[in-house]
């Protein structure tokens, strides 16, 4: 009996110790709180901000370092430390989902423009309408990017920079194929040129023209949809409906089939342009970021060998593109939302941001950086194709940012892939996709 008593006492003691330790752990703060050093030194409050960004890491290293210096100048009374982690694109979304599910504490996160609604609805992103308006977001950013920072009429993020989908080409091979770059500007000229490019490319051991297959097919299809006057979604009374279930959508879907028949390749393994920089293709539909895939030596005289232009457009119509890029937001769990906002403002400061944009060939969302000669000249100097990039900036459109959008994109991917693999007609693909998309808002 004494033995049993001993065991029971031992267990009870264990439970008490665990409870006490748990209680203590709950009381201790999970992140450092502002502390004040001894009174002899100038009053400086120590603050640590935690941030989560999407890869690549080096761009954030450059931006955070420059922003920290700016912040120190503007807030000498705060001893700021930024702890940040960088995740690959897909992992970043997963990380945000798990963080939202766990209501995890963080101060700044980078959000792809299409994810905003999802995390706002999850209650994970803080409404920064007052701060953004006071900062002058409506005057500072180009209109499409202002809209991209909003959800349900409020501001939840600031669009830091953008990118655009373009068409890259190798001048020497085009010359051998007897194709003028100008021939590729119209849809008809482009289609005629594809077989010629392919023949010469094959002889050179290269691929001809490449348009991204899975999983990015849809993003690259949108410019064709926009050129023909279509939209991704249109607002209805009860929500949204497909904006592509029309002649524009069918025409744009038919472009994919025409490209396939002309000999365009749709690689599904996608290295973001390394294939083009590595000399494996003559014409490559890739983003503005493709420039960064060339080495510094190659970039020095790149315009002699490489050219870039907007997507081919039907005769008489204007070429369009799709804008991507990253938004900066403050999670609702932030312990220092005011300081996080101050730091975001430093990251967005034209003096801080412009060198980073120039180095990584990103496009500015802020008018002042694109238009003020003090900043635009930096971009012009560093980015050899700045005039084309600048044109893309004004002809870009953003994707919707409501929570249902990932499903919309998946439905379109499913049906458009079938067109590429010739398993359905463009008409059927568009109608089927529209039916499924419309059903998302019909309960």
């Amino acid at each position, binding site marked *: *009996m004494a*033995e*049993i008593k001993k*065991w029971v006492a031992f267990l009870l003691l264990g439970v008490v110790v665990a409870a006490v330790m748990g209680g203590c752990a709950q009381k201790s703060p999970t992140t450092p709180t502002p502390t004040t050093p001894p009174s002899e030194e100038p009053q400086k409050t120590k603050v640590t901000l935690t941030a989560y960004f999407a890869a690549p890491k080096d761009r954030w290293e450059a931006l955070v370092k420059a922003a920290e210096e700016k912040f120190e100048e503007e807030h000498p009374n705060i001893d700021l430390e930024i702890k940040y982690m960088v995740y690959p694109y*897909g992992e970043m*979304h*997963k990380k945000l*989902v798990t963080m*939202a*599910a766990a*209501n995890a504490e963080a101060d700044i996160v980078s959000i792809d423009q299409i994810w905003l609604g*999802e*995390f706002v*609805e*999850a*209650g*994970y992103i803080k409404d920064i309408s007052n701060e953004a308006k006071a900062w002058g977001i409506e005057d500072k950013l180009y209109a499409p990017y202002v809209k991209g920072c909003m959800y349900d009429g409020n501001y939840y993020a600031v669009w830091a920079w953008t990118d655009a989908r373009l068409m890259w080409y190798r001048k020497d091979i085009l010359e051998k194929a007897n194709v003028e770059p100008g021939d590729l500007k119209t849809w008809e000229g482009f289609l005629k040129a594809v077989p010629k490019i392919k023949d010469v490319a094959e002889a050179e051991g290269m*691929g001809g023209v490449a348009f991204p*297959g*899975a*999983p990015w097919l849809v993003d690259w299809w949108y410019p064709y949809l926009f050129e023909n006057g279509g939209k991704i979604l249109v607002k209805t009374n009860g929500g949204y409906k497909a904006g592509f279930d029309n002649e524009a959508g069918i025409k744009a879907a038919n472009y994919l089939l025409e490209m396939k028949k002309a000999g365009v390749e*749709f*690689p*599904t*393994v996608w*290295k973001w342009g*390394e*294939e083009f920089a*590595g000399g*494996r*293709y003559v014409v490559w539909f890739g983003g503005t970021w493709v420039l960064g895939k060339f080495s510094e030596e190659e970039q020095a005289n790149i315009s002699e060998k490489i050219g870039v232009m907007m997507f081919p457009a039907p005769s008489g119509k204007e070429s369009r593109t799709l804008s991507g890029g990253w938004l900066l937001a403050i999670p609702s769990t932030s312990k220092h939302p005011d300081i996080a906002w101050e730091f975001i403002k430093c990251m967005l400061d034209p003096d801080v941001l412009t060198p980073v944009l120039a180095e990584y060939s990103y496009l500015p969302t802020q008018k002042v950086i694109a238009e003020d000669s003090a900043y635009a000249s930096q971009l012009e100097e560093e980015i050899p194709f700045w005039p084309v990039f600048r044109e893309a900036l004004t002809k870009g459109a953003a994707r919707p940012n409501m*929570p249902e959008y*990932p*499903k919309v994109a*998946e439905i379109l991917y*499913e049906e458009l*892939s*079938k067109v590429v*693999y010739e*398993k359905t007609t463009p008409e059927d693909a568009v109608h089927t996709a529209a039916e499924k998309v419309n059903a998302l808002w019909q309960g």
Partner: protein
Amino acid sequence: MARLNESITPYLLLLPSFFVLFGLMIVPMIWNVYIALHDVSITNIAKSWKFAGLSNFRYLVNDEWFWNSLLVSAKFVGACVAGQFLIGFSLAYLLSKERWSNLFRPVFILPWFMSIIVTGYSWEMLFHTRLGFINNYLLHFRIPWLEDPDIAIWSVAIANVWWGTAFTMLFMETSLTSINPEILDAAEVDGATGLKKLRYVIIPLIKPFIAVNLILITMWTVNLFDLILVMTGGGPLYSTRTTSLYMYQQAFNFGEISLGSAVGIVLLALNLVLAYAYLRASR
């Protein structure tokens, strides 16, 4: 009293392990069932969850892509388990006889030391139609390993067999060492050599090991998604989207957490059925 004490003590000693097991395995499983029976998505995760009954399971039954994922899983698991077992067992058998086995064993085990993500990226680059080593330097013509919906699943299976075979090899080699050499000698005296010895003596003796090995590699392959995610993301045209990848995409790409949980329960049931089938067959 001493007898009572003696009978209670083992249970008391097991209690900590039980709590750990309960906390880390049973509770999440029950939680998963709870989520699958409610309507939980990323957009309402912070709000109250409505009871959804079996509607998530009904959705799966009516979703053609869920059925497609099961078919893809069947192909993938079949190819991987057959490949891993046959190659792994053959290597184990050869190594158990080979004098130089100590030299070769580490070479064959090497892939298993690699992270599955690194394996995925490596094979993705090897299979790349235009940049890949296989097409450019070995074959000198272009096979769309990961770009043709009819080929891609087999390419991913090759990568997984390369990675996972080492486990079967080690496991089966251990099982072969468990056979009493006197039995093998006796079989030889009775005239059983080569394949006959393998078929009528060795395999029946290590049948339980084979069953456990098959159960383990089947379960791991059914649940595997990271390799496929890295190599193809489920494409092209969903030809490599297995049920586990479908589950991942529902939960993390579309934020449909309940649907992801429902698929997880289906996968658990599938694993149990397969494990039961192997155990029955090995009797």
